[in-house]
């Protein structure tokens, strides 16, 4: 068959307009600001005594089986995690689909001049200000709540591509590999308890104030205040939540002069203070201060213009080559499909 120029333009223009309308939706900018009501956690590793009360109560609050101090009445029906093949119970060794929060210990075997360089560290979702997982989720299952800034997960939307696991620089999201109807599992800062006037179980159960719940702005101030304290002095550390009345008087230790989470990965709502270098506490040393969504946004934001230019380029090429063909006196067009 032969196709004339007008017909041809009609078809390509039609597709072009169709795409142009979908393309305009992609022009909004990203990079959210920290909401004034954003809540988070400040973890002070120097206060942590490694009792793992947070782990146990996290499992209880989130109905996850197992636990360091498992009790039949307080946890789900499947009690244990079997780390190895033999049927011997072990406490969780890392974050998994059954463990949303874990305490780990960095142990320095050769303390210099009698100084103990050991430190605990509590790992769970850091609730980034601009989270990679939310930006990559193709179905909007992972969302950052506009008011509290909590990164929540909707298992009914998720179709299980696991891009969030690849994207999260902290390696937090876990997947229920053993289930035939699996979900992503990660800390949601006890969003369900917060909605009912409560707060994060790990902070509520922390006896020393190592895990402290509160507004992110207050926690940031508190962290900076602690770094400004003179080691050896006493300081009344707030316990459980920063706006509560419970305090504990402790001698101020020597802090590493850095609040982890203030700027890392564009800032996080879960922040850390410690007495040893953060590189030793299991943080990926390659993480810098860039907000991760920007890496892919640089590409995605150009997709509409690429669609437009490629359609135009294709149409023009066809137009020119057909014309040249005709000029060469070749009437045998090659439109036969």
């Amino acid at each position: 068959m032969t196709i004339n120029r007008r017909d041809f333009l009609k078809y390509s223009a039609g597709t072009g307009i169709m795409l142009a309308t979908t393309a305009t939706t992609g022009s909004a900018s990203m990079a959210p600001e920290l909401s004034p009501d954003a809540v988070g956690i400040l973890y002070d590793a120097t206060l942590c005594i490694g009792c793992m009360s947070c782990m146990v109560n996290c499992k209880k609050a989130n109905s996850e089986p197992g636990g360091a101090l498992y009790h039949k009445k307080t946890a789900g029906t499947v009690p244990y995690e079997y780390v190895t093949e033999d049927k011997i119970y072990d406490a969780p060794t890392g974050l998994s689909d059954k463990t949303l929060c874990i305490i780990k210990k960095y142990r320095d075997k050769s303390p210099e001049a009698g100084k103990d360089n050991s430190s605990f560290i509590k790992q769970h979702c850091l609730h980034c200000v601009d989270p990679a997982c939310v930006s990559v989720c193709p179905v909007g299952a992972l969302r950052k709540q506009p008011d509290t800034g909590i990164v929540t997960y909707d298992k009914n939307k998720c179709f299980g591509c696991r891009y969030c696991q690849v994207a999260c620089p902290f390696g937090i999201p876990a997947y229920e590999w053993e289930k035939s109807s699996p979900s992503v599992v990660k800390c949601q800062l006890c969003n369900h308890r917060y909605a009912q006037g409560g707060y994060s179980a790990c902070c509520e159960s922390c006896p020393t104030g190592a895990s402290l719940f509160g507004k992110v702005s207050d926690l940031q101030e508190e962290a900076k205040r602690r770094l400004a304290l003179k080691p050896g002095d006493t300081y009344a550390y707030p316990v459980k939540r920063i706006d509560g009345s419970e305090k504990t008087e402790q001698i101020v230790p020597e802090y590493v002069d850095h609040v982890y989470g203030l700027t890392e990965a564009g800032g996080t709502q879960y922040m850390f203070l410690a007495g040893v270098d953060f590189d030793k506490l299991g943080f990926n040393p390659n993480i810098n201060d860039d907000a991760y969504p920007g890496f892919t946004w640089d590409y995605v934001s150009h997709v509409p213009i690429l669609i437009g230019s490629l359609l135009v380029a294709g149409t023009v090429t066809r137009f020119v080559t057909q014309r040249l063909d005709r000029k060469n006196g070749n009437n045998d067009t090659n439109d036969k499909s």
Partner: protein
Amino acid sequence: MDSNPNIKTWTPATIVMVLMIIAGTAVATNRMIFGLGVTTNLNDVYPWGLWLGLDVLGGVAMAAGGFIIACAVYLFNWKKYRPIVRPAILTAFLGYLMAVVALFLDIGHPFRLWHPSIMWQYHSVMWVVAMHVIFYTTTLALEFSPMLFERLGMEKARKAVGKIMVGAVIFGVMLSTLHQSSLGAVFLIAPSKMSALWWDTKLPFHFLVSAVAMGLAMVSFETTLSQKYLGHKVDKEIITGLARGSLIVLCFYFLLKVYQLFTVASPEMAVDGSVEGNMYLLEMLIGVIIPIALLLVKKYRNSLSMIFSINIMVIVGVLLNRLNVCMFSMERYDSWRGMTYSPSWQEFVLSLGVISVGVFLYKMSAKHLPLFSH
């Protein structure tokens, strides 16, 4: 038109393919009933494994031949390649169907595969990829349909498709270009996990160029096979022309990779004996450096058997590249996290099954459809 009597349905190769399809189906059933944990060795540190790396990333790259040949014939008016348009489009169509099947089995909730089409998340590369798969598979079905209509004698339908064919090709070229690049862009989010040997802001472009190299090699490879086993007679000029195209694209790709090696990564990283370094060297040697070296020799460039071997090397090399980007590039991070991954036998069996489906359908199309009529 009747089926091609020169192509026998039951040959030893077909029987092997059917057996692999049956084995693959068994694994797929197992996965559908009991989940990913029983069938795969995937874990939280390696959420993407063989199915995604080989069947999805590799399958889509293999399908690139469809848009390149369609572009060459319909847009650049290079009539020489007209005899291989239909096989190339069929390969692309089958490649995408295979990728969709693999994707269906790989995602946690197969029956929610349609979710991205209503839950728009324009800032997610994965969403962009998903939309491209939907649109491009549809476009390929349209480009493929004339063969079916011709066979069924539906002259009106064939003519109707013929009218919009050029529009479909332009649309398809655009979708395909972006889809190949977007698959690379998926990995832009992981700079703190991937080795700098692969991670680069230009990764989408690397994916596109290597997919073009793969597409040319694939088309040439299957044309040679069709000639040998399916009685498709084509000019030697087509094969040598594709080889020249491969040489140009591979040289360009080589320059891109060398530039990246010296600016983003460093040459020491490639030769430090680490898993990443070795895999990088392997990928570059098999897929890029040796093929370029051979193609530069005029005698080899015009030898059909040599071109055939070179094509296999390019295909294997680009497949390695996809597996590297998807898995081995994160080796250092993953071993730091204390996890390993090697595909389970079921992952291999299913992958082979999916590939067999593609080859089997190609053969059946050659027998029953006017695939080689030009």
